[in-house]
Each structure stands twice: as structure tokens, then as C-alpha cells.
């Protein structure tokens, strides 16, 4: 009994499992005072998931059972550290999402291993790459200053995000990956040396997006992430890219040497690569396309050198697993930042957006006991408030519907597609008709989400009405809640008739949901 108490003073190890296009990976780690996250166990096995998907859009039974076997071998390691499988953070990334039978696949894995799997949306994958930076003990030093483009090349999708001073300004996922390219080459019978042409179209598009989303002439550093790139860096440097010292660092490669390596890989057969580098077959297959993409990106951005991060996606998962509470605030910061960047892209009225956001959040906080929503919903409301008017960029007429479309197609790093959709629908209801089931975007939501939409949109409509003329002339507002009324009290001037009318119109949903009419009282 005594020893048990002693054991509890030590932080508990945590485990994360991630499934990529070519591998299934387990990482067990613990957080230590002064040392950060220490990896205790890593196990990785290659699976032909991506191969399956590019062929048939389904994960075949053999692959599913192979994954189950691998998970069983992982569970032995979990039991050594007394980690219950139910507590493992397990995610499936982009590759699985593309499978028609993804739900059945994850169900099978969860049932067989008792590890609860969840599927990540494209934006969330990028978020974990971003989160991985927090695994670097002295991250403030290099990667938290200035701008850096982070590119992750996966088997089926690739991600590009831009960070400046530690904040994410832009994040985008592309449906291009090493396996896809490989498959296209095979089906169209292209020679290995034509790989560059295949890749160039994509990287040009990515570079263009990047340039559109960052300040002109801003110098770009390219940080590459992904296991094939880590492997390549290890090949070019005598020391393997691992170990605690290496985890805090990156490998700097000149574009010229990356080019030489890419050429060598292109000219080698898969068999030669597996033999000479002792890598698995699936890995050898995608090494060439990955290197070519990285190289092409570097060339398109006219860089002389690139950086290969030793961090991986699972490092990001680990940061989340050991550091849960801190996570929410970081996430919020990034999502809000991206929302503002998006607003700027669509030439939004920043002051109006800020005013509406302030009012909306104040109301949200005031009504907490009534709406029973979470912090996460508060974040969604905040983003909806920032972006509610961006549809004006397309056309002022029916702009709420344009907002809906634009938001839906924006990637908010760390948020799921469902959450992004929720934001879009809330923003859509900032004006005109109230939510109704004849609206397809509303009707398509599950019941709980429809309730959330109504609760948040009701607040947003009131907030928008209170800055009807977009001049913030009402200043800060105070609110008083009475049993059947919400009294808004501006601190500068009496509300104009335009605001009164707008509130009368837009307060409809609020009255319906919260049972209170909205009034504006004169300031004292």
C-alpha cells in the first residue's frame, strides 16, 4: 500500500496513437518537471492504408485486420505502463477521412483495442503540427520569432501553415500527397524524372496562397515536417535525427543537397531503396514524391536552404495529452487570429466586427446560466461575430449567405469541420429570417447543433443591431436583465431610431429563445 502512494507522486504516463496514410504509431510519454515531455516508448509499423485508398477509396479487410494486430501489440506496451486503453488519445488523420468505410474502420479498431479513435479534420492536423512546437523547450529562441512557413507532406493530403511570432496566420490543407502522386505516375505511366512536372503545379499553387496571405516581401523560412523528410535529413547528416538534443532542433539542409538527394531517390528503384536504407516498402515508395514536393516548394519560394523539423504530428498530440488545460487558450488565440486575418482578406469593417464581438461576448457571458453553452461555443460565437459581414466582399445583397459560404470554406486551425460549419450558420443568421427547417444548411445540422445555432445567433443579431450604423458611437454597453426584458444601456449617447428599429427587428430570435424583449435605455 505504501508503495502505491509513492508511485502516485509521479506524473502518469500518457499514450497517443495516430494512424497516417502509411503507418500506425504509438508514443508513450510523461511530463517531467524541468524537462518537459519525455518519450518513454515509441512503436511504429507501416500499413498500406494509403495504398488501399488511392486504389479503391476503401480500406480493405486485410489492412483493417493488420491494424488490429498492430494495436494488440501496442496494448502490451500500454499495459507495461499501466495505461488503460480507454485513456489513450488516438486519432486518425487525413488518410482515413477519405475512406468510404472510415467509420466502420475506426469502430472496428476501437472495439478490438478498446482505444477510442477519433477522426481529425484537415485543419486539426495542422493544429497538431503547430502544437508540436510546444514540445521544444527553448522554442522562444528561433521558431517563435519572425515568419515561418510550415509545410507537412503527407501521403494523401498536405498542409501548409504560416506562423509569425508564434501565431498562426494562415493554414490550408491540400488534396495532394506523396502517395497520390505516386499513384498518378503509375496509372499514367510517367517516368520517374517527370515527377517534377507533376509536383510543380501543386507547389506553385501553395506558394501563391502563401504569398497572398502574408505581407508583401516578407522573408519566408520553410520548415518541413513529416517522417519521410526527417528520414531524408538523417540520411544527409551522419547523426540520426533523434534524441533529446535533436528534439529541440531542426536540421538545416541546403536546397542543393536536398536536390541531389531527390535526384538519387528518383533514380533508384523502390527495391534499391529498401535494401540500401533498410526502410519499409510503403516508405520507400513515397520518399521520391515527398522529396520532390519539398524541393519544388523551396525552389518556387526561391530559397537557398530549408529546415527539417525533428518534431512529428504525435509530438503535438502528446503536448495536448499531457497539457490539456493550457490547450484551450492557445487554440482560441490562434483561431481568433485566423478569423481576423480572414476578415482582412475580405476587407471587413474591423471596428464594427470588434464592436459586435465585444457586445456578443458580453451578452454570452451574462446569459451563461441560461444558455448553458461551453467555452468552445463562446469561441465559435466570437469567430462568427468577427466574420458575420465578410459576405459583403462578394455582394452586399444577400451577404449573410455569402458569409455562410466563405466561412464554411475557411480553415480554422484546430477546429473541426462541424465547428466551422456551426460558425458559418450562426453568421448566416445575423440578419434576415430566423432559422427554419426549410433552410438546408440549418436543417442539415443535428438537433443539438441547431439549438446552439439559435442560442448564438440570437445573441449575434442583437449585437449587430446595436452597431447598426457601424460607427461604434454607442460606446461601451451595459446590460440589465429583467424577467421579461433585456435592457441595453450605452455609455455615450441615446440610441438612434435606426438602432431602435434594428433592435426591434433583430431582437426577434432573442425574444424567442431567451424570452426577453430587447430595449435600449438612455445613458445617465
Amino acid at each position, binding site marked *: 500500500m505504501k*508503495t502505491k502512494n509513492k508511485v502516485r507522486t*509521479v506524473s502518469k504516463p500518457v499514450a497517443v496513437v495516430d494512424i497516417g496514410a502509411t503507418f500506425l504509431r504509438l508514443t508513450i510519454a510523461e511530463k517531467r518537471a524541468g524537462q518537459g515531455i*519525455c518519450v518513454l516508448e*515509441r512503436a*511504429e*509499423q507501416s500499413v498500406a492504408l494509403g495504398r488501399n485508398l488511392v486504389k479503391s477509396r476503401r480500406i480493405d479487410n486485410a489492412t483493417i485486420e493488420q491494424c488490429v494486430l498492430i494495436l494488440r*501489440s501496442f496494448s502490451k506496451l500500454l499495459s507495461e*505502463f499501466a495505461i488503460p486503453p480507454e485513456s489513450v488519445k488516438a486519432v486518425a488523420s487525413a488518410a482515413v477521412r477519405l475512406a468510404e468505410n472510415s467509420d466502420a474502420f475506426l469502430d472496428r479498431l476501437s472495439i478490438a483495442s478498446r482505444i477510442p479513435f477519433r477522426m481529425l479534420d484537415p485543419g486539426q492536423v495542422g493544429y497538431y503540427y503547430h502544437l508540436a512546437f510546444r514540445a521544444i523547450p527553448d522554442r522562444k529562441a528561433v521558431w517563435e520569432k519572425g515568419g515561418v512557413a510550415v509545410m507537412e507532406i503527407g501521403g494523401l493530403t498536405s498542409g501548409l501553415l504560416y506562423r509569425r511570432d508564434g501565431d498562426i496566420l494562415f493554414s490550408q490543407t491540400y488534396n495532394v500527397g506523396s502517395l497520390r502522386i505516386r499513384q498518378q505516375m503509375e496509372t499514367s505511366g510517367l517516368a520517374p524524372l517527370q515527377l517534377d512536372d507533376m509536383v510543380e503545379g501543386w507547389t506553385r499553387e501553395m506558394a501563391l496562397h502563401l504569398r497572398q496571405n502574408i505581407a508583401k516581401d516578407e522573408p519566408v523560412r520553410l520548415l518541413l515536417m513529416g517522417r519521410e523528410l526527417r528520414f531524408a535529413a538523417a540520411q544527409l547528416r551522419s547523426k540520426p535525427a533523434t*534524441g*533529446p538534443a535533436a528534439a529541440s532542433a531542426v536540421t538545416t539542409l541546403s536546397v542543393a543537397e536536398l536536390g541531389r538527394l531527390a535526384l538519387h531517390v528518383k533514380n533508384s528503384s523502390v527495391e534499391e531503396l529498401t535494401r540500401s536504407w533498410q526502410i519499409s516498402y510503403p516508405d520507400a515508395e513515397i520518399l521520391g514524391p515527398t522529396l520532390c514536393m519539398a524541393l519544388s516548394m523551396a525552389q518556387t519560394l526561391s530559397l537557398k536552404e530549408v529546415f527539417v523539423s525533428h518534431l512529428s504530428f504525435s509530438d503535438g498530440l502528446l503536448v495536448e495529452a499531457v497539457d490539456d488545460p493550457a490547450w484551450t487558450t492557445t487554440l482560441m488565440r490562434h483561431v481568433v487570429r485566423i478569423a481576423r486575418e480572414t476578415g482582412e482578406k475580405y476587407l471587413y469593417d474591423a471596428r464594427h466586427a470588434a464592436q459586435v464581438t465585444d457586445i456578443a461576448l458580453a451578452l454570452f457571458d451574462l446569459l451563461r446560466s441560461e444558455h448553458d453553452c461551453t467555452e468552445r461555443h463562446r469561441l465559435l460565437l466570437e469567430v462568427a461575430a468577427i466574420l458575420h459581414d465578410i459576405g459583403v466582399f462578394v455582394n452586399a445583397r444577400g451577404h449573410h449567405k455569402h458569409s455562410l459560404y466563405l466561412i464554411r470554406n475557411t480553415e480554422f486551425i484546430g477546429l473541426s469541420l462541424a465547428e466551422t460549419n456551426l460558425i458559418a450558420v450562426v453568421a448566416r443568421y445575423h440578419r434576415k429570417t430566423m432559422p427554419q427547417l426549410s433552410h438546408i444548411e440549418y436543417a442539415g445540422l443535428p438537433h443539438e447543433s441547431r439549438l446552439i445555432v439559435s442560442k448564438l445567433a440570437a445573441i449575434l443579431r442583437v449585437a449587430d443591431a446595436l452597431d447598426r450604423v457601424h460607427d461604434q458611437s454607442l460606446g461601451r454597453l451595459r446590460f440589465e436583465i429583467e424577467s421579461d426584458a433585456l435592457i441595453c444601456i450605452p455609455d455615450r449617447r441615446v440610441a438612434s431610431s435606426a438602432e431602435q428599429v434594428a433592435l426591434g427587428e433583430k431582437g426577434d430570435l432573442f425574444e424567442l429563445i431567451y424570452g426577453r424583449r430587447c430595449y435600449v435605455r438612455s445613458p445617465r
Partner: protein
Amino acid sequence: MKKSILSPRFFNRETSWLAFNQRVLDAGCDTHLPLLERLKFLAITASNLDEFFMVRVGGLKLLVAGQIRRRDLTGLTPRQQLEQVTRRVRQMVAEQYTLYRTLVFELAVKGFHLPESLAGLSAEQQAWVARDFDEHIFPLLSPVALAGERPYRPAGLLLHCAVRLAPTQEGGAHRFALVPLGPLVPRFLRAPHPTGAVFVPVEQLVAQQIGRFFGGEQVLECVPFRMTRNADIELREDLSPDLLAGMQELLEDRRETACIRLEIHRSASRLLVNALASHLQVDLSDLYPVDGPIELRALLPLAQAEGFDALRDAPWLPVPSPAVNIKEPLFPQIAERDILLLHPYEAFDPVIRFLEEAADDPSVLAIKQVLYRTARDSAIIEALVRAALAGKHVTVLIELRARFDEARNIGQARRLEQAGAQVVYGVRGLKTHAKICLVVRRERQGIVRYVHFGTGNYNERTALLYSDVGLFTCAPDFGADASDFFNAVTGASEPQALRRLAMAPFTLRTALLRLITDETARAANREKAQIILKMNALTDETLIEALYAASRAGVRVRLNIRGTCCLRPGVNGLSEHIEVVSIIDRFLEHARLFSFYNGGHERLFISSADGMQRNLDKRVELMVPILCPVARSRLQKILKTYFKDTVQAHRLLPDGTYRRCRPSGKTPPCRSQRVLFDEAQTASTRLTQTKPTRLEPYRRNQPLRG
């Protein structure tokens, strides 16, 4: 110069091995050694030769039978090699028996009698051994007919007596029978002698008493013989879904494989020899008539016979390592600093204690261990079983294919499984030869991994005879690598890039070659460069070529290769900077130690791998850097000692022969094993002298230790 370039770049592997065995035989001829030590060396050469026959000669025979003409490094076909080997072996066998007779004569003078026949025994002695035979041996014997409905298949390397019976009727055929002398039958019967003792070979008694088995029949002759079967049959893993079952089949098969050597006493009649040869399907070219007792390896226990200490060296018993305080638990000591052990000068106990403490320690979560060859009643296995029963997660990779230890390993694998350990029977297509043990422990500051790496097996018996190095460490990189290693060999993960260790068949070869080429580059750059390798065998072509290149660049290459060495040293323009020595002494040199000068920042390694292709490509092996300063200076000192030896060292000459080193007049002679033994003794004595300063009573709830 011209001549050396024309001569082959390599030595033949088999010839080089035979030269090694010859060095051991030469040790048996060394008149400076006590008689029973010489007898021991003789027995070792015989045991070595048995294994050589089963594996190497067996392998060559299979190649010849399969008409495979692939040439070896020296350009010889399998048939040519086989002829060369056979010629050399016959010569060696003759020398073995000459030495045997010399030793018999000299031992008799000292009261240790090995009679040639029972005739030399007194009536009293005869009665003594006859009684012994009646009581203990006769019940164990049962003759079988040589031919019949169910023909008897003699087991390999088991001594038999072949019996020829007179025909039952005139003009009829002779009849033949065999008496197997099974493993329970003692090989020698000891009887008192006025000057000491007499050791009677059991086959002489069988021959004397043979009539009792064949009541009323006329026994014409009774002659001992032994056959050797080809053991170079590998498990066909693709045909055997269950490795455990496959191994058992292999053992059955080995009983049945072709006979590649038939040793029979010279006195056997042609009639008997022909009958045996045809029944056992032995080619007469594989017949080895011997003039003395068959199976000289049976002399090994005699060398330990009680009461003849004067005929032996005083034993060199292991002493406790000064680096380990036996009164304190081991884990905190390892946490303080790495511990390097040199066996058998220093006791193997800490390795067993490591496991025993882990088994009983509530903070220990998991124990992982690779076992290749274990002792019969292995304390290591006991500790693992106990740990598994105590609920620890015990993972053991037990190499079922460790040659000649298969049967024992199968039994131990079963025991461990029954105790609840996870047992892995090796890795498909590769033998797991790495010596590693990992203990995962939960401590106040988090998970800590303790690792033991070794150059020798986890076998407390051989640890008394083999000279090996072991390292305890809990450095995080080593622990993490150890975890990755076990995840790879147990199939939980594909091999990951390791931080500190190099692992065959993945990175060890490249790492070793890179270390060699780094030194070569330094030498080419006119920096000081030196490579020191101590291993049991060096036969890998690429490795040897890399060493040649290093020599040509000016690297000083010092090799301590106990056995086979295919590298030809001292040839101008090829290997003039390479020296090769081999040490044959009381302990079997077994440690694999590598050192690279590296511009003064010496890189030191211990390893489980020899410089052979099979180690680098077909086995799972480890190469472990030594980083802790204390361990490093110790290892450097050990390595230096080996190259100072002027007593038991043999230098390999460019022509392939070995010349025994002699002390030069100026420096006192240096026998490396003696030096290492003395150093261990001194360090240990110093320790025991400084230890007891006060008396410490045991209190309640205090663990009893020390």
C-alpha cells in the same frame, strides 16, 4: 613485394579456424603448464573439432553434394576446401593422440592412471570397477541388432560399442549388434590406485562383460565407435508455421542427418568396419580409425578430478567488482554512474542480482531480456520466472535456434510462458545474438530505464570461463534505444533510428565501416589514426577490405582475433600497418571490444558481434558505445593489456602461420589474463580492507543484504 601481391588477399576461413584449434592444441603441448591443464586443452580441441565437423565440414559436404562450385575468398571451390580441411584434420587428430599418449605416460608418473586395457589393472582394481559396472552401468545398457526389421539409427556424437557375433551355423553370416552408451552412462570409472587413482574407460568394461548380453553366443569382437552427423541443416521457417514445433522437428532431423565422420578404434576388423559403414551409409573416406579412447572431449571432466590439485593451476576465482557495493541495492548504484564489469575476473553475480532485485522491486514495471545460451539450472531464468509470477511484465526473446542449445532453450521457453512471461522465439530469418537486458522502473522523477549490455551470454556457468565485458547504465538515450530495440525484435514496431546503439542487420555494418573510413580519412590527412578491434573472428570481406584501405592510408590497425581471421596482415602495399594477435589462455577470450582513435577523442564500443558476415547481416546484434569516463578509462586499460601480452599471445604472420610471442630481454614477460586477474584481485582486496569500519545491526523491517 611482388610475391605478396600475387598471394591471395585473404586466408581461407576453415584453414584459419584449424590454425586456431592448433594453437589450443599447442597449449596442450606446453610443458610449462600443469598436466591436467594440458589434458583440458586437449579435450577442448576435441570438443572444438566435433563442432567444426558438424557445422563447417557438414556445410562443405552439403555444398559438394549440391554441386555448388561457388568459390570462397581465396578462390577455392567447396570440394577443394573439403580436401584441404580433411588433410589438415587427419594430421591434427594424429597429433591429438600423440599428445594423449604423452600425457597418459606423464600423468601415470604422478599417480593419475589412464589404462590402455584392463590387463594393466590389479585384481583388486578389476573387482572394484566390475562391481561398479554391475551396479551402475549394466542396467543402463541394452544391445540392439544392427540390421533387422526396425533398423537402429545411432545418435550423433554418442559413444557406442559395435559387436560382431560368430555365425550361428557353420558357413553362415556374421551378425552385428550395437550397444549405445547413453548420456547417463559415466565415461570413466574411478578406482583406487596405490599412487593415486585409475580411470577406466567404460568401453573397456563393456568389452570385457559383453558376453553377458549374448548368453551362449560367441562374441568375436567388441569395439567402440562414434559417428558424427551433419548439423548444418537450418530450419526452413517458411515450412514451419510454429517455430517451437519446427525446432523440435529439427532436433529430430538432426538425429537422422547424414553421417559425415565415423571414428572407430583401430583394432576393429575390416569385416566390422564394412558392416558399420554400409549400415550407417558412411563413405570410407570419412572413416577415422583412432589409436586410443574415442571422444577425447570426455577427458574434460577428468581434468577436474578430485584430489589432483597439484596437477592443476590454482583456480582463479572471480572476485566481487569494486564498482558494485554488494550491501546496497543495485539500481541506485547504476543511477550514480555506469558500471563496467570484466568477467570472469569479476563475478557475474551483479547481473543475476540485477534481475533478482528487479523481480522483487515493486517499482519495477517491466523486464525485457534476450537469451541466447543459458546455463542448465539458470539463475537468470529463475529470476525471470519469479518476476513474471510477481506480476511484472516480463518479455523474453529466447533464441530457439542457438545451435546445440535448442533443446534446452525450448524447455526454458515453456517454463517462462507458464509463469506468464511474454516469450518471443526469435526473429524470422535472423538469429538474435545481442546481449541485452532492460528493466523499466518507475521512480519519483518519472520512468527510468536500467540496461545491461554484454559481450557474452547470460549464462552464469560460461561466465566463469569466458572473458567478457558487461555494462550497466541508466543513461536515457541507452534506455530509449533499448526500448526501441525490444519493440523491434518483439514485433511491436518497425526498427527505429537508434540514438546511441548500432544494431545489426541494420546499422551496425555501416556504423563500423564508417568508423573505419573516418580513421582512414584522418590518416590520409596525416593525422594520427588507430583502430583496435578485439573479436573472436574476422571473416567479412567488406570489413577486411576497409581495414586494408585503412592500413594503406597509414592507420595503425591492431587486431586481437582469438579464432578465425581471414585478413592477411603485414603485407607491403596491402596491410603492413596491420598486426593480428591471438590469445589462448586459461579463459576463453570472448569479449568484442572496438576502439577508434578519432583524433584523440577515442570512440570505444563493446559488442555482441564478430567481424563475420553472419553477425553483421544475418543476426540481430548490438554495438554499444562506452561514454562514462570511469568505464572508458577502465576499458582502455583492458584493451592495452591485451596487446602487451608476451606469454600467451600468438602473432599471425603474412604466410598464415602463427608464431608464439616471447618476452624480449628488456621488458618483463606479460601474461594479459594474469595481469587482469591480479588487478581484479588487488582492487577487490583493497575494497574488503577498507570496508568494515563499524558494526551495523539489522533492525526490524530492514532488508537483509550482503
